């Protein structure tokens, strides 16, 4: 029944996220033919970093799989998964979901309470990442294109594993602060700072969390970012362990 309680606490965030990401995935596929038609209009003579970016984007749009990776996995889903990982990580923990003392009066250990809540949140996050991504191979024939379900699955796993770090961070913060806003804002601020560091300082996608999230090494070289995936899973586990320890010693 704790699963049911976790579902009630997070269902609106999950359902809204799922609806938004499904729409975004459908829009990504269905707008491709129009974007291809606009490709000849893209200016190619602009110099400097901006021109390089424009040329790279135009180049990625010439092939449908590259376009899907660039628009969906690299951009829309990465941003959406980060946001909803934080939202799901902060939803419904004891301190702000109502009925905290009632929950703590049940014959359930605090470890199990957190475990079920984390498992439910991670399952929702996985569905949020996977289901809209699988819509792309399903919808692609409608515009005369193909996208492999295997590639969608692999990118989803990369995205989920990296996004789980933000989920676990938000989860840990929710065991520290009793209000909703501080965990949410701190976790989002951390994600934004990390994205800026990623943009400005890190050159290798294998070194960055967002690089792992985008599955860049898989897209460019067909190689899974194993080190990054293992490191992300390890960081998530450490953050979750911190949440368990903190939750166990808290007074309510």
């Amino acid at each position, binding site marked *: 029944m704790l699963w*049911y*309680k976790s579902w009630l606490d997070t269902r609106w965030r999950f359902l809204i996220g799922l609806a938004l990401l499904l729409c975004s995935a459908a829009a990504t596929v269905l707008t491709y033919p129009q974007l291809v038609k606009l490709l000849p209009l893209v200016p190619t003579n602009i110099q400097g970093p901006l021109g390089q970016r424009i040329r790279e984007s135009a180049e990625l749009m010439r092939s449908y799989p590259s376009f899907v990776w660039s628009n969906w996995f690299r951009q829309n889903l990465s941003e959406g998964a980060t946001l909803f990982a934080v939202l799901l990580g902060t939803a419904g923990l004891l301190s702000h979901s*109502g*009925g905290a003392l*009632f929950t703590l*009066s*049940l*014959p359930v250990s*605090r470890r199990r309470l957190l475990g079920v809540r984390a498992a439910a949140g991670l399952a929702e996050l996985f569905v949020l990442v996977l289901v809209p991504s699988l819509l792309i191979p399903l919808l692609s024939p409608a515009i005369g294109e193909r996208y492999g379900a295997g590639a969608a699955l692999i990118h989803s796993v990369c995205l989920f594993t990296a996004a789980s770090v933000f989920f676990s961070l938000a989860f840990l913060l929710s065991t520290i602060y009793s209000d909703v806003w501080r965990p949410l804002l701190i976790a989002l601020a951390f994600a934004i700072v990390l994205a800026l560091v990623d943009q400005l300082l890190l050159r290798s996608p294998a070194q960055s969390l967002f690089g792992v999230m985008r599955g860049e090494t898989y897209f460019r070289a067909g190689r899974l970012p194993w080190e990054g995936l293992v490191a992300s899973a390890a960081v998530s586990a450490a953050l979750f362990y911190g949440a368990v320890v903190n939750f166990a010693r808290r*007074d309510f």
Partner: protein
Amino acid sequence: MAESWVIETAALRKSYDGVEALRGLDLQVPAGSICGFLGRNGAGKTTTMKILLGMVHPTGGQARVLGLAAESPRDSVEIRRRTAFVGEEKDLYGTMTVEEIVRFTAAFFPRWRDDLQQRYLRKFELPLNRKIKALSRGMRTKLSLLLALCRGAELLLLDEPTSGLDPAMAEDVLQALVAQVANEAITVFFSSHQIAEVDQIADRVAIIDRGRAVVAGDLDELRERFCRVRIVFDGDAPRASFRAPGVERVQRDGRVLTILSSRGADAVVEEARALHPLSVDVDRVTLKEIFLESAAAEE
């Protein structure tokens, strides 16, 4: 610690950021009793209950419930399996309906009493399909009590169980508690600001003040022990000090000395007669007076 106590604390301490909520609380509640837990606001009643249920970690001392250590995470789960709790706020899951939370709670308690569930649903007239957030405070109180009474618990820990109820419903709840104790051989430990309620249904009482138990014991025995001795003189009452054991307070007002004793009147009366008064009268005191005097004595 003796096994006969359902609740037993020894030198129990709890500090919040350096502020002491409990300062060495010693408390014993025997099996099968209805024990009223009295104290002023901030005396440490809720903290004590939360420690017993593992919601708050004590800073020192020991607490045992049903023979199990409240501080042990494993024992604490077992304590909560055999104990029902109603918190002061009656804070339940607002998004669930009455029916959903009853089903939800029943799933955690193998000894859940369907017969009591049906009885209290009817008695409390709870609307099954209404969301909890749409219930009045009184309705939430009734629902909280239903969820506690149906657990098949050996111990009921109730923090202000009748708050938010009208007098008629409060009476129903008190009678339900008494009936539950009589029929199921359970123990009830409840805090209340309504001393009349404690007087009405409790057979034991524990009065806590500033984190320490100042009075505890069988209620009839307390009524026997506590008394007021009123000594009238023909002139101004002397500024006498009494050495008799159990003298809690001496009040001098014109020709009258009033002495509150917690160990009977005999020794006080004997000492008073040596002062050659006009008259010496001994009165029984009410629980309210015991409470007020005990709390005042700690000022």
